[in-house]
């Protein structure tokens, strides 16, 4: 069941488009914002609410990088692996994170604190290497700086 708040937010976005299906991506993001990820049950509820088939909606949900169809940790670390960050050493950044957190890409730490994901260019290439934690950008990274900044995410 979608909550009243979720429905209110979805309808407020839907008002900006002439066709109801156009709100599908906004709806997925709204539900994910409240629940952390989009479960099969949430997907079916959203599909029903906006009048789409669950299969069609899932083909959209699985297409976009920022929709999570599996549970994630309290914080999602997205490590840029595009070319400028690669030149500036993002492979070392990723290896450091994997060692420190004890997880591979696409995995969540045992304490459910962090999920580690790769991401495409974050558009701050003059301050590479870069990563995002949730909505926050972190740039000019080295292992010490990463360790320090991750302390802010409990």
């Amino acid at each position, binding site marked *: 069941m979608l909550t009243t708040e979720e429905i209110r937010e979805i309808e407020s976005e839907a008002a900006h488009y002439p066709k109801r299906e156009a709100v599908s991506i906004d709806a997925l993001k709204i539900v994910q914002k409240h629940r952390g990820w989009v479960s099969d049950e949430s997907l079916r509820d959203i599909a029903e609410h906006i009048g789409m088939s669950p299969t069609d909606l899932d083909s959209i949900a699985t297409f976009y990088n*920022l929709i999570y169809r599996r549970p994630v940790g309290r914080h999602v670390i997205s490590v840029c692996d595009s070319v400028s960050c690669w030149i500036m050493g993002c492979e070392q950044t990723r290896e450091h994170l994997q060692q420190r957190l004890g997880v591979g890409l696409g995995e969540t730490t045992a304490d459910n604190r962090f999920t580690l994901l790769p991401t495409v*260019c974050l558009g701050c290439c003059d301050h590479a290497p870069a990563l995002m934690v949730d909505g926050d950008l972190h740039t000019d990274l080295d292992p010490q700086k990463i360790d320090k900044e991750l302390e802010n995410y409990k």
Partner: protein
Amino acid sequence: MTGSTDKPLTGNVPRDGSALGLPAYEQAGGYQAIRKVLTGGMTPKAVIEDVKNANLRGRGGAGFPTGVKWSFVPVGKDAPNPTYLVINADEMEPGTFKDRFLLERNPHQLIEGAIIASFAIEADIAYIFLRGEYTLAAERLTRAIAEAYERHYLGRNILGSGYHLELHLHLSAGRYICGDETGLLNALEGKRANPRAKPPFPVVVGLFGKPTVVNNVETISCVPHIINNGAAWFHGLSRTKDGGTKLYGVSGKVKWPGLWELPMGTPAREILEEHAGGMRDGLKFRGLLPGGSSTPFIVEEHLDTPMDFTEMPKAGSRLGTGTMIVLDDHTCPVGMAWNMTKFFARESCGFCTPCWSGLGWAERILRSLEYGHGKSGDLDKLASQAKMWSPGNTFCALAPGAADPLETAMKYFRADFERHIAEHRCPWR
């Protein structure tokens, strides 16, 4: 905005990282251009003529003349209704970080440009399609749009002119292919962002099947200045025939990576040496991608070519987004080609066969080269694959954009590719 500065897009932006707020924007002449257009009696046609005469070319990378694109929109009594303006703020081309600056630091300039562009194409609805990862830009744009509504620059009967415009910010859910203009339209319609076959072009059949102009953030940001100061002034900013200034950027192992607004047509050597400070100590320059990871490499002999849409093809490349990625002699060109091909393979929407099948194959060959398992014949296979990604074999420019850096890497750094095979290892690892 005033034309006194040679940096119209960025000259008034505060240096502390904050956005140019509404009062400061207005004080510097902001929102005068919409007054000139909406209450000063300009016709949509006159606006289009100004932008055509300025020779403003699309800053998303393709360089299509903006005024010409606008003039293709059907208008008049029998034209389809409504018409849409969509601003492509889905900056995701690897190595590109210019629109982020304009979105975060000068949001009202973009909004004013959007109002003028919408008026010119007789649109009453405009969307800003922003990539979801640009959270600070989203926050600042949301606030700026609300301020513009409060001041009656947006909404019903703007400044009493009788013109209406609704502007909505759409936050995307992340996928490189959304940057393709027809992929973007599908994403905005709530679908997978598979690009569409063209023709029909979006200016005739676009968003929700209606005429739609899709313009880049930097392109739209130029528009208020052209209206205020005229086409001749805009030409005067440039060193070449393509009008205006350009946001140029440098990333890679240079002394001072960064972003600068400079005259259109500034050569790469000047940007690299005077603005980015040259290579870091101990490193040598080998080549660069002039405007993101889908533009062909250029090397030392091309560095004096003016960086604009007209001249770069003469050096075998393209201006693209104007944000260059520099390859140094301590970085492996094969590894770099592998990284970019992997990116394109991962971001392919999966629709056209040369793209979804070929990119993955090429990525696996490049990986095996990089790990010392390359075989003779691999380079021929890569070359024949890249040929199949030519324009015309796919709906969109993703695969051709993957071919350009790979083919030129194999051309300029051939000996390095061959060394990987001969020595069964990457000499840089």
